[in-house]
């Protein structure tokens, strides 16, 4: 815009008028909050600057790919032998593995490219296909039952539908309580109670999905257009009829979208749930991690990634159709 279009150009606003002061204060407040929040967390920037961290991280990443780590030893011939008398003292009470590692004074590390990587990992994919499908089935069943139970509770957790305020508060508190329990803890407790396998995983996912959908859906319900509800009340409709004719059509697309979203989250969550014995591919992943079979870990991560990408694609397509 040129000056000529504004015949009476007002004088340049002062620093205070232009909001500059406010922005400066906002920036200062941000720095203050950041400083206070990071205190006593033991965050040491130096740790990231040191080469050690990066070496360890890249080591892990490389070993998740088609490489195997080889450590050469200066004194390889005594690796499996008895330790020297002079070095024995510090190892007392430790396992043989510790001895071996300590004896093997590391000379050089290099990574060996496994030319049979693809063949080996394709064979492995066949092995994990079963647990993977179990994970998917667990997620589907968990999300289904979660969504089923979430519907009535989300109605009771929506302020605009609940006649008595205390009902709303009680349901909200219960939902918050359930959401506060970490899914991992839930699965650990359930696998203790129900035994190892898919069942505790499914139940944990159902509870987790229930709390998530109930929360999201109740908030959608609270933001619906109140007009149709008023019109139905004026027609003499009862509460259930109002829900069926005024609420359901308005929130159905969101509900289905949340359902699909939760299904996606459940696939991700169920991989972790396997860690505590709740079935699925997580149990396989845990075993591979414990046995430091990092190539297998890498393959499982890739497989889960592919699965999640496919599900995200489907969920985006379905949501586009619905809204």
């Amino acid at each position: 815009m040129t000056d000529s279009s504004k015949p009476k150009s007002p004088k340049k606003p002062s620093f205070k008028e232009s909001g500059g002061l406010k922005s400066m204060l906002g920036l200062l407040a941000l720095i203050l909050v950041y400083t206070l929040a990071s205190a006593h967390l033991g965050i040491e920037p130096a740790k990231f600057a040191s080469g050690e961290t990066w070496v360890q991280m890249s080591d892990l990443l490389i070993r998740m790919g088609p490489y195997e780590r080889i450590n050469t030893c200066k004194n390889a011939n005594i690796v499996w032998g008895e330790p020297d008398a002079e070095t024995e003292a510090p190892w007392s009470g430790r396992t043989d593995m510790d001895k071996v590692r300590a004896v093997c004074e590391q000379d050089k590390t290099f990574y060996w490219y496994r030319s049979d990587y693809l063949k080996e990992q394709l064979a492995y994919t066949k092995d994990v296909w079963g647990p993977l499908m179990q994970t998917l089935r667990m997620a589907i069943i968990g999300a289904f039952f979660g969504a089923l139970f979430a519907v009535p509770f989300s109605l009771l957790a929506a302020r605009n539908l609940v006649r008595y305020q205390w009902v709303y508060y009680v349901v909200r508190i219960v939902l918050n309580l359930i959401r506060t329990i970490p899914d991992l803890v839930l699965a650990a407790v359930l696998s203790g109670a129900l035994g190892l396998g898919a069942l505790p995983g499914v139940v944990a996912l159902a509870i987790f999905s229930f709390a998530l959908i109930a929360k999201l859906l109740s908030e959608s319900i609270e933001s619906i257009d109140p007009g149709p509800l008023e019109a139905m009340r004026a027609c003499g409709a009862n509460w259930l009829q109002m829900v069926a004719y005024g609420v359901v059509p308005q929130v159905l697309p969101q509900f289905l979208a949340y359902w699909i979203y939760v299904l996606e989250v459940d696939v991700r969550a169920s991989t972790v749930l396997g860690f505590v014995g709740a079935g699925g591919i997580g149990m396989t992943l845990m075993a591979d991690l414990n046995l430091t079979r990092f190539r297998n870990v890498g393959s499982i991560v890739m497989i889960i990634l592919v699965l999640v990408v496919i599900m995200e694609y489907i969920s985006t397509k379905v949501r586009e159709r619905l809204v």
Partner: protein
Amino acid sequence: MLEFRQISKTFPDGTKALKDVNLTINKGEFVVIVGLSGAGKSTLIRCVNRLVEPTSGTIWANGRDVTKMGDADLRRWRTQVGMIFQNYNLVKRSSVLRNVLAGRLGHTGTLRSLLGLFSAEDVALAKRSLERVGISEKTYNRADQLSGGQQQRVSIARALCQGPSIMLADEPVASLDPPTSHAVMRDLKRINREDGITTLVNLHFIDMAQEYADRIIGMRAGEIVYDGPADKVTEQTFEEIYGRKIRPDDLRGGVEE
């Protein structure tokens, strides 16, 4: 006959929306309530079906006190009172037919309505109602595909579908353009004449009030300041009701034909 006796309404924030309103509406009358926004028009007509609970006073209809009705009785009473709104209040994602059938909810059992099992007579009545307001060709369209005037007609059809004895209309034309406004008012008037449905309409357009009303009630600050037949009303009367000079935006204008 509908009789308001000393109806008062004080909202929780202390606003006195209605102050001791006494009013008798005769059967089959077409009454237009005029007044500035905030005068208590909406509150007054919402007291009839108790979408707003009056703080004190009684409303008598067919020898019964509406304000003392319990839940079930109130729902039964509401089925006799059709209502149309400024924003149509249709479920936009539902079909026109389903919106109109919602008017039958009060007459339909809960289980049947949840399953969508309306009787054949109800469906026929819904379709007939749509015909009467002239949009039967839109029966299966989604409500949000319709223009504002068409949506308001769907909401009239929904109210008609209830088989009401009283029709309430809260600013039914405020969101419409002048020609559509007149079409909607003519529909209301026609239904009032043909079915003998007592009609209460809130308006703030004085020319429309004069054109369609049998009787005009003027409200200001929660009180009835004028009550008389429409043909006796002059611009002077409106200036008294509004407490100021008449302005161009108090007129809808644009009578077609």
